[in-house]
């Protein structure tokens, strides 16, 4: 067992460009979460995937943000037309199943810097 992996670890982009962030959850984990953490701040929920159910997108801050998940594996978070305010660490987590009764395992994060 490998843990949750994320790539890239760091991404520097120019304002207005699109970026894709990738998350590989722990094998067998049906639930996958994306969070945003601004410098010195808490964890801000973005989106949640649970099995084949429709994702909970209630935390996405704008329509520039979207995410996909292929089955119960890899997920990609896409930010279009990036803005400086999007600069943050984007964390992915997975758990054996959803419902908040299982611990979440976090990946190392992707540090996004928008110039």
């Amino acid at each position, binding site marked *: 067992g490998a843990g949750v992996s994320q790539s890239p670890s760091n991404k520097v982009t120019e304002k207005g460009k699109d970026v894709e962030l990738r998350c590989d959850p722990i094998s067998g984990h049906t639930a996958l*979460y994306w*969070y945003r953490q601004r410098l010195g*701040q*808490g*964890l*801000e*929920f973005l989106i*949640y995937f649970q099995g084949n159910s429709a994702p*909970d997108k*209630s*935390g996405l801050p704008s329509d520039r943000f979207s995410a996909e998940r292929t089955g119960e594996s890899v997920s990609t978070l896409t930010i279009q037309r990036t803005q400086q305010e999007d600069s943050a660490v984007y*964390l992915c987590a997975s758990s054996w199943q959803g*419902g*908040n*009764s*299982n*611990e*979440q*395992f*976090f*990946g*190392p*994060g992707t540090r996004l810097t928008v110039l």
Partner: protein
Amino acid sequence: QQPVQSPQAVILREGEDAVINCSSSKALYSVHWYRQKHGEAPVFLMILLKGGEQKGHEKISASFNEKKQQSSLYLTASQLSYSGTYFCGTGSSNTPLVFGKGTRLSVIA
């Protein structure tokens, strides 16, 4: 709604005890506690699922008062390795966790 954590920050000397509180304005189904060291990902500490449930791991324990809609994390005889930011996350069985803003704990020798 985001749970409220208190205190925002605390400094301890090795061996001292600390309590971190997490309060919610909504009825709680579960409370998660995580610790994040600087520059690292959050690491799971424990989950409390029932009102009145208490759990412990070595010298870190937690309680969950469902009626008061709050949870407390107890750190006894703190060690340098306890330093970090502690987050509580609350949620129901079918809504995502909402995390508090965190409590920054610094343990000094």
